[in-house]
């Protein structure tokens, strides 16, 4: 081919590549097509220039083509999805920052007021109710939710707030909150997180893609919140140290004012950062999951070894069961985050096999836990804690078994990765439903003990 045509192809390539929905591999594929077409037209008697023009024309309107790519590969567009097209103006960015800061201050102030007015155990149950509406409000503003959608979110929120505050929870032994009160406090945030998700997806809650975006958002929010916490912790530690040396006791101020204001505020700011600074974390996510998946496998296998050699499972400490539940939930989060960070079109590889090992190890731990729990229930009877833990473990079991099954299918190239993704996004609301049951049904069921 003549050098001028080579140059034209290179320029065309660059022009196509500027579209974010079209990846480098796609451009390679399109270029191969273009060159084959030019060669065929050349063989039919056209000269190179003419052949190139005809081939370009046949390729079609590039905007329309790249729009199709964007529809198909929405994960590549997830940067743009969150930034509305008319956001380019500088004024909007400042307005958004102002809204975020106002909501952050509001979240902190709400928790501070709660701290001043509510007794300890009521505050525990209400903390998420006080803070999360501000995250919901941010997304309601950002996604321009309709008044009806906001009302639809407000109803379950109000119901949850009433339940948590009107139920006559009995105090437990030694003045500590009772079991159902603690369970309600632990599960209310899960229900509320579903409401955050509904606001996040902006009403498109049926869409698997948007649900996956929310999983991604949750993972990245956790990373940003942790980063903010570490940075803030270092600053506060240094401040406390310096003030201590000059004889000022900063700790009461820290506990009463700085932390209650800063921790919820940082959550709102982190939510905004995930939205605004997508590119930064997007590149870290696959790396993080690749680092932590093998480490988690090692942890699970060693825990499994210890549990199996520990002997009688009836005597296993209650605290241990709770801790293990927390570990399994963490493994699940890692799995979800890894799935959300993966390009669904990449063929199965070593890392997918590793992920299967992780799921199987988690399944083994879950099976041991279930056995321990059932023997404890047979020995000591039902209690709210045991039933809640049992329910969670059964949910995890179903989730993991199916995930393992689909991963095997994917590794054997029998199923697309999309099937595994869809299973996650379809199953997630079940956890929120279970959490709602624990908050709403458990206290009356167990006499508010």
């Amino acid at each position, binding site marked *: 081919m003549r050098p001028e045509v080579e140059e034209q192809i290179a320029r065309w390539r660059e022009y196509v590549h500027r579209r974010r929905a079209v990846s480098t*591999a*796609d451009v*390679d*594929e*399109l*270029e*191969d*097509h273009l*060159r*084959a*077409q030019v*060669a*065929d037209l050349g063989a039919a008697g056209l000269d190179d220039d003419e052949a190139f023009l005809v081939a370009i024309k*046949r*390729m*079609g*309107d*590039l905007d*329309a*083509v790249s729009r*199709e*790519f964007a*529809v*198909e*590969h929405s994960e590549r567009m997830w940067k743009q999805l969150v930034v509305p097209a008319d956001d380019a103006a500088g004024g909007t960015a400042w307005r958004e920052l102002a809204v975020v800061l106002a909501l952050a201050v509001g979240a902190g102030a709400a928790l501070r007021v709660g701290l001043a007015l509510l007794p300890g155990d009521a505050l525990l149950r209400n903390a998420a109710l006080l803070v999360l509406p501000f995250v919901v409000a941010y997304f309601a503003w950002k996604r321009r939710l309709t008044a009806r959608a906001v009302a639809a979110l407000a109803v379950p929120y109000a119901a949850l707030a009433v339940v948590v505050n009107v139920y006559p929870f009995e105090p437990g032994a030694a003045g500590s909150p009772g079991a159902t009160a603690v369970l309600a406090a632990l599960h209310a945030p899960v229900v509320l997180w579903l409401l955050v998700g509904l606001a996040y997806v902006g009403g498109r809650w049926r869409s698997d893609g948007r649900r996956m975006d929310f999983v991604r958002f949750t993972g990245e929010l956790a990373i940003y919140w942790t980063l903010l916490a570490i940075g803030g912790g270092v600053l506060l530690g240094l401040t406390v140290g310096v003030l201590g040396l000059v004889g000022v006791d900063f700790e009461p101020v820290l506990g009463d004012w700085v932390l209650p204001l800063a921790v919820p505020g940082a959550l709102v700011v982190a939510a905004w950062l995930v939205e605004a600074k997508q590119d930064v974390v997007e590149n870290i996510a696959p790396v993080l999951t690749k680092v932590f998946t093998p480490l988690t496998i090692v942890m699970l296998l060693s825990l499994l070894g210890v549990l199996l050699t520990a002997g009688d499972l009836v005597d296993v400490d209650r605290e241990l069961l709770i801790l293990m539940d927390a570990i399994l939930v963490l493994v699940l989060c890692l799995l979800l985050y890894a799935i959300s960070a993966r390009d*669904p*079109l990449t063929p199965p590889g070593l890392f997918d096999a590793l992920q299967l090992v992780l799921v199987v190890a988690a399944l083994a731990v879950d099976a041991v836990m279930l056995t321990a729990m059932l023997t404890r229930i047979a020995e000591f009877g039902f209690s709210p804690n045991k039933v809640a833990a049992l329910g969670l473990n059964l949910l995890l079991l179903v989730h993991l078994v199916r995930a393992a099954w689909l991963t095997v299918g994917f590794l054997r*190239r*029998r*199923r*697309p*990765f*999309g*099937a595994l993704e869809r299973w996650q996004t379809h199953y997630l609301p079940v956890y929120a439903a279970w959490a709602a049951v624990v908050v709403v049904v458990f206290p009356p069921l167990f006499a508010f003990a």
Partner: protein
Amino acid sequence: MRIDKDLVAASATPLVLGILAEGDLHGYAILKRVAELSGGRMQWSDGMLYPLLHRLERQGFVAAAWGTSEAGRRRKHYALTPAGRDALAERQEQWSVVADALKQVWQHARDSAERVAQGPAGLARPAEGWA
């Protein structure tokens, strides 16, 4: 004759699956085959084929692998998977129902057109009686 855009779009998936059932191909060869089969009357924007192929890949109906062309360039080949074969069989059934219904309705239309064509002659006689 140009085929209506919606019709081309609706038939694209079964057509591509059917062509891949004949053997593995790369994108350009698939389009050449479409042109061959339709006598050049089904025109796509070439670029539109690729998002479609990627969708079929995500759905697990086709599997893609990078190879090299005769000219030594990177080239992506597509092959039908067992799931794709099932999907093709299903589409085939759907399309034969549609085609069958259309055939019947064309036949009806032709029959009644013939009847109408004969009709005026039949009606002409009483008209003559009036005259």
